[in-house]
């Protein structure tokens, strides 16, 4: 029974609760056990079983009273970047030691308001900086998938939302929140065989979510089906007057938008995404995706996104620059870690040296440098202009197409410890996800096939601003055609 419950989707669990097949408390108990069972993956930083069961009991009451919300009674994991009232919030960093927010982030408040049950806070790269979930102060997260011929090597789940991805893939949560700055939802989704949706910038409030790069950060759902992504996004999204960059637009019924298929839809295939040295299996998967969409009635159009090549470099200026400023507040004065010093300056320098990990320090220093006197124009300003070019490329493309199809990542999950010596090799993981981030566009990764090593690979659909409906509809069509049902090696309760 219990592995049956943890194997459900949000949609099927919701329907089961509505029919009275099981209660939220039963569903949650099964998941609490699953959370314990997947401890070897190190997906959760903080487990909150008591809180989960309390919330589930409340949900059961609301379901009985006919007052169920969109996520009523559904147990999910929360990326530990979202501030949760009274529950330790770490951002995967030593510097937030012992931090218990006195407030609830808008996204989690929205989810809980819709009835969602919190199983705990899941691991991530420190301050969401990473593509392998190797930089967390709370340790690396292991991907529940193994290579077909190598069951020993521990693989990364991708990052930064690696804990979210691992928990969802291993059936230790029905779904999880993620955040995406340059690919942190989509790339781990691709690495773990789940669905990850980065909404349009401004769709989900950033209030109460620990900031990495303010102009890029966007929360989104990580689920096991496209339908689930639609359901969960509907509950997370919405205008928030506390976030000046939140868009005052009504939230459509995303689930209703799933039907209809891609017949007549124009799907763009960007030439520039065919990069030198792209593995043949990625190219093959992409062609497969093109075939599926064409088969479902879409028109395939070759498009140009001429500045794609420069997206990664622009991103690795803009994101560290904003981060260097956003992370200045971690100074040991008002919360988190304080490492003493003889003087105030020493206290600052010791606290931040010990509190931040290596990758965070590297990015803070790069960011500080590119904003410093004499370099601002050459780096930051130039990168923001290149970013305008990239956004312009997409705008032009969307004059001709309704959505864009591309691979999510240039490779499948790799081994823990690989790519660690060369930051740029690590950064290249984001090559296909960063352009949409820079342009603020909605993009989803859908599991589409397996690599030669037997690891999941995702395809990505990118859409127009605030047109998540088209993105979801195209994703649903891909999902249908791919019919991806391979399970990871490590599944809770099995």
């Amino acid at each position: 029974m219990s592995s049956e419950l943890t194997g459900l989707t949000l949609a099927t669990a919701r329907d089961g609760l509505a029919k009275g097949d099981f209660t939220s408390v039963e569903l949650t108990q099964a998941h609490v056990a699953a959370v314990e069972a997947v401890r070897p993956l190190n997906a959760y930083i903080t487990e909150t079983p008591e809180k989960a069961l309390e919330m589930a009991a409340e949900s059961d009451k609301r379901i009985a009273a006919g007052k169920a919300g969109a996520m009523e009674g559904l147990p999910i994991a929360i990326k530990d970047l979202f501030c949760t009232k009274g529950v330790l919030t770490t951002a995967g960093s030593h510097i937030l030691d012992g931090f218990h927010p006195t407030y609830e982030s808008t996204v989690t408040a929205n989810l809980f308001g819709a009835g969602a049950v919190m199983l705990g806070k899941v691991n991530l790269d420190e301050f969401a900086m990473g593509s392998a979930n190797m930089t967390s102060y709370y340790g690396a997260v292991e991907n529940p998938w193994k290579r077909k011929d190598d069951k020993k090597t521990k693989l990364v789940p991708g990052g930064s939302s690696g804990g979210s991805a691992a928990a969802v893939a291993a059936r230790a949560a029905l779904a999880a929140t993620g955040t995406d700055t340059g690919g942190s939802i989509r790339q781990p989704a691709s690495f773990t065989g789940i669905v990850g949706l980065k909404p349009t910038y401004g769709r989900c409030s950033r209030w109460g979510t620990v900031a990495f790069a303010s102009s890029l950060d966007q929360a989104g759902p990580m689920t096991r089906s496209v339908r689930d992504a639609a359901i969960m996004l509907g509950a997370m999204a919405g205008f928030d007057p506390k976030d000046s960059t939140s868009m005052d637009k009504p939230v459509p019924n995303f689930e209703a938008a799933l039907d209809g298929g891609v017949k007549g839809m124009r799907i763009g295939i960007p030439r520039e995404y065919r990069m030198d040295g792209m593995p043949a299996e990625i190219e093959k998967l992409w062609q497969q995706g093109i075939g599926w969409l064409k088969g479902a009635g879409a028109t395939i159009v070759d498009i140009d996104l001429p500045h794609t090549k420069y997206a990664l470099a622009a991103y690795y200026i803009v994101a560290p620059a904003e981060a260097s400023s956003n992370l200045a507040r971690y100074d040991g004065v008002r919360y988190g870690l304080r490492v003493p010093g003889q003087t105030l300056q020493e206290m600052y320098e010791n606290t931040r040296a010990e509190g931040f990990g290596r990758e965070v320090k590297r990015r803070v220093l790069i960011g500080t440098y590119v904003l410093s006197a004499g370099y601002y124009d050459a780096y930051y300003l130039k990168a923001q202009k290149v970013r305008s070019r990239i956004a312009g490329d997409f705008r032009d493309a969307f004059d001709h197409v309704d959505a864009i199809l591309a691979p999510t990542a240039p490779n499948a999950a790799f081994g823990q410890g690989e790519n660690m010596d060369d930051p740029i090799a690590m950064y290249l993981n984001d090559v296909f996800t960063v352009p949409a981030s820079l342009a603020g566009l909605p993009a989803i990764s859908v599991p589409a096939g397996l690599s030669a090593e037997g690891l999941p690979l995702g395809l990505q659909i990118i859409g127009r601003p605030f047109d998540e409906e088209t993105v979801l509809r195209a994703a649903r069509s891909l999902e249908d055609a791919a019919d991806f049902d391979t399970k990871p090696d490590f599944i809770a309760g099995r």
Partner: protein
Amino acid sequence: MSLDKATVARIAHLARIHVPEQDLEPLAGELSTILDWVEQLAEVDTDGVAPMTSVVEMTARWRKDEVTDGDCAEDVLANAPEAEMGFYTVPKVME
């Protein structure tokens, strides 16, 4: 190499991150690699292009001038590593 040891020491101080002397050189190397790599942006023609300042095509929304917050010193100080008499405290600042 675009960054030397002294520059790394200067930006580390600006960022208030203590970097031990022996780490400056290797860090200068790492950071230089990244900076050399981003140099490729110079190839892009950005004449007459406005820098992207906001992703969403909109302008700032304004808040009404109403007192809706504050009066929560307990929350403000709840996570303080050190506080006394309602103040945060830090090692004495020499003016």
